[in-house]
């Protein structure tokens, strides 16, 4: 069995948005669509204030609410835990975006480019009409994972088989790997560190672990 999960070390994250930008590059998402981003959160009252940075995106839940509400079976789930969207089946109802407690899903109906109506050469080259009128979200870079595995690489270890956000993280905060493998990088991190998952009480069994302290 395999289940791919993401781990974000909140001691390391500095909110720089390098992962946000790397994801935009890798997946050529349109302006404003950030499959991966980092929240800048502040709590408390002056002078007792805490500020922290929290990477968010699709949590690839084991029990994904988005899949349950999808009327067209466009949202699916792979054997390795990655929650998918088949753009050909998606009817663009956006029930999934409403159902997702992590605000991870986007729907774009019209093409949008960085500088108005005319795409730049880079946008033109990578524009995908299939992404209009359908739900879209983080895919854990499944294309990279699959191609990497086909070439004998280890996702989360070999950069070519690893999600772009993880590759780009300059703080070494993001990690990706197989939680079902007790010897994997993520399994080791979860053993050695205290962690929590977001909105766990909703029963989504998310595949995104936030590390916050050494055990």
């Amino acid at each position: 069995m395999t289940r791919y999960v993401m781990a974000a070390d909140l001691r390391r994250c500095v909110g720089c948005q390098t992962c946000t930008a790397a994801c935009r590059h890798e997946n050529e998402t349109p302006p404003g669509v950030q499959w991966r981003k980092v929240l800048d959160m502040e709590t408390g009252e002056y002078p007792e204030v805490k500020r922290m940075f929290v990477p968010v995106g699709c949590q690839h839940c084991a029990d994904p609410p988005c899949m349950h509400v999808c009327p067209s079976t466009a949202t699916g789930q792979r054997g390795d835990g990655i929650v998918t969207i088949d753009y050909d089946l998606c009817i663009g109802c956006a029930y999934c975006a409403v159902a997702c407690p992590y605000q991870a899903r986007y729907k774009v109906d019209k093409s949008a480019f960085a500088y108005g109506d005319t795409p730049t050469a880079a946008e033109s080259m990578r524009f995908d009409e299939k992404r209009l009128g359908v739900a879209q979200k983080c895919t854990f870079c499944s294309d990279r994972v699959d191609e990497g595995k086909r070439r004998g690489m280890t996702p989360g270890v070999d950069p070519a088989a690893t999600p772009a956000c993880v590759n780009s993280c300059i703080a070494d905060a993001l990690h990706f790997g197989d939680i079902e493998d007790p010897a994997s990088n993520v399994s080791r991190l979860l053993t050695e560190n205290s962690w929590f998952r977001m909105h766990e009480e909703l029963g989504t069994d998310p595949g995104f672990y936030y590390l916050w302290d050494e055990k």
Partner: protein
Amino acid sequence: MAVPAPDERKRVATYCYQCVNGPDLLTVEVVGGVATKVEPNFEAGNVHPAQGKVCVKAYGLVQKIYNPHRLLRPMKRTNPLKGRDQDPGWTPIPWDEALDAITARLNDIRSRGLVDGDGYPRVAFTTGGAGTPLMYMGTFPAFLAAWGPVDKSLGAGGTVKCTHAQHMYGELWHRAFTACADTPHCQYLVSFGTNIEAAGGVMGVRRQADARVRGCRRVQIEPHLSVTGACSEEWVPIRPKTDSAFLYAMLHVLLHERRIDELDVAFLGQHTGSPYLVGPHGYFLRHPDARKPLAWNKTTGQAVPHDTASADLALTGEFTVRAVEIGADGESWNYEAVAATTAFAKLVQHVARFTPEWAATVCDVPAAAIRRIANEFLTQARIGETIEIEGRVLPYRPVAVTLGRSVNSGWGAYECVWARTVLQVLVGALEVPGGLLGTAVLITGEEHDRIGSVRPGPDGFLDFPMNPTDKEHWVAKPDVRHAHQSLLPLVGNGRFSQALGSSTLAWMRLQGRAAESWPRPKPPDLWFVYRCNPAISFSETDRLAQTMASFPYTVSFAYTLDETNHYADLLLPEAMDMESTQLVRIGGTHFQENFWNHQGWALRQPVVAPCGETRDFTELATQLAQRTGLLADYNRMLNAGAAGLPLKSASHDFSLDESRAHSTDEVWDAVCRAASAEVTDGAAQDGLAWFKEHALRVRPFSMLNWYLFPRMLDLGLRFELPYQERIFRTGQQLSNRLHEQDIRWWHRQASDYEALPDWKDVGQLWNEVYRESLAVDPAKYPFWLITARSMQYAWGANVSIQMIREVARNVAGHDGIIVNGGRAREMGIGEGDMIEVSSPIGSVRGRAVLRQGIRPDTILMLAQFGHWKTPFAKDFGTPSVNRLVPMNIGLMDGGGSSNDAAKVAVTRAGPPS
């Protein structure tokens, strides 16, 4: 470049040097000749300390190529009137016409003399970004060198936006043009606003993250809870501009509340000027014949020269000695029996009154917190412990005090850098593992060879190329508009020294409102501007722009239209970051947290063909050299090292034929060959093709070279701390020279050269300037307006990049003005409301961003916006502190630096818009 097939896919390696933390390495995927995505250069991961990664800014480089607002053809002004409301009437022209126009003006200048009637160069050149544009400028420096005198004093923000006091004093004391904690070995960091997570680049973020997880603790002392504060164990919201009081109180705790034997007495006694005896006039007491500073030998009960072998020198005590005291301009006093005390004792006496209780009222920080942090610093220093680094046993002192950028400039900066460095030496944590380290040298030696710059100077200290202040050699008549040689002894007169002069003074002199005893300088006949936007990034920017409008001819190398080139006569679109070629040094130790175990060279190569009619800077430089008859000189400069390193050595000769013009590739091929030979000690001579394939070439760099202490020890040298006798004498001599010329307007600056800097109430000083110089009631400006770094934006002409704007908006403060939520409520200001912020020189408006992580008496404008011409950025509606910061001699410290802060008034202007 050959036209690629539509489906041709390749990955091209290059470097990013958009900020001083570079170069970092990246690869760009190119499909059918179109750049598509940026990724780390993982192949360099075994030598790059952060696994070959780049920060968010580098991901903006693809859009930077394809930004539709890019200028792609040379443009000339057709409206002769220059002004904010004047349309320049830009008309595209062919390159030949543009270069002909420049050539004609340059040839005319040469015929009239390279310097004007006042002795100032007729040609001026301005760039910004702390020198990072040099990494994109190709061989243009060789052209400027071939030309002759060039005025580089019209700055874009330097001496306001830089760590100016650190540059000067840091390099004097420990070859630390910039200083940095030895983060991988540090355990306790006291950070006075050092926003390392935003400003420390890829290395900074990685090293600090590793340190946090390892258990290194950081206290962040700053008025607003920055990105770095967010990642720190403790935030201490200090009142702005009171850092010196906190630092002095820490000194007080260590020197008055702890026993002397708890400090690193061995380090102090053997490796600093602490035992030196001080005479009645404030100078060292010296051996009457040898003239060496004396110290008291406890073993023999006598005063001896400081370098006497096996002497056990006293750190404290009162003694009677026979000595000579040498003051300014050779004045001396001979004593048969004079009362003397040690420099260390004078230090102790100096900080006696700066108790934590006193500092608490100044800083608005509880005395208990100040005391706790000082004691923690001492405890964590682990005095006496050692560590082995590559076979050498060194002191291990895992504590460091770091200073935020704005703590290093303007009044109070000398006190801060001095107190910080003295704190380090009290616990022996200077230039040893775990402690405070210098990173590069720009005044005293080769930038890439800090250790090589360690040379004996006078009195057992390091040497330093002071600008002379003695009567015979003082440069009485300035040769550039900010007169750095005349007014600033500590910036030297080397390659980078002009950039360290007071560029604020240069602009103020052009405006006729400074240095009244000298004639008002005329503008340069030709002003080159490259990769900077002073109309946005300097101070009192509205007035600065008016001054630019008065210049007769400005040539701007332009990316898009912007607020500075709005006043230019010619716009030249050079090929950008990903379209041109250059080889630069990489590795070793450099600037912020760049500490490598390798050192060598990295290539920037065209990822895509230059867009439109843009041209590589090297090509432009060569053309200009040819057209102005300077080709041979230009090539000679290249051969001598103007493109990075000399092209000829004992073992190889890749010199360019001086008589002909060389293509961009030919030039950089020769540089690459010389670099290959340097890295491999002559074994390899691979040129441009090799570097295009491999991206970089490095060799091992010993970790011992991170630390200055081993070399100091080997040469028997001491750190020139705590007592600044040389500085004191220099200041006295400078004052004498100014007095002889009846120059009164620099008197206060010259008096900043104190042996033990006296604490100054910077807030009070600002009030005085407001009252007396700006003729306003300071009580009407009760808020401190400060700024902070945005990693996403600094530097790189990112303001017009859409993706940068988009991702930056996830980080608080990019959309408006940060105000304390409670204070805002009291003032009737709601989230998003428009507020007006005024200083004595102007007003700006912006949206209120209500946060808890900022003092109620402080507001913050992040980064440097306020654009009104740059496409895309001009629609942000986010103001900049720079419009509100006055240029004023009263606000300049001894180094000619001032601060990008201001006292302001805040009122609600309207609902959200």
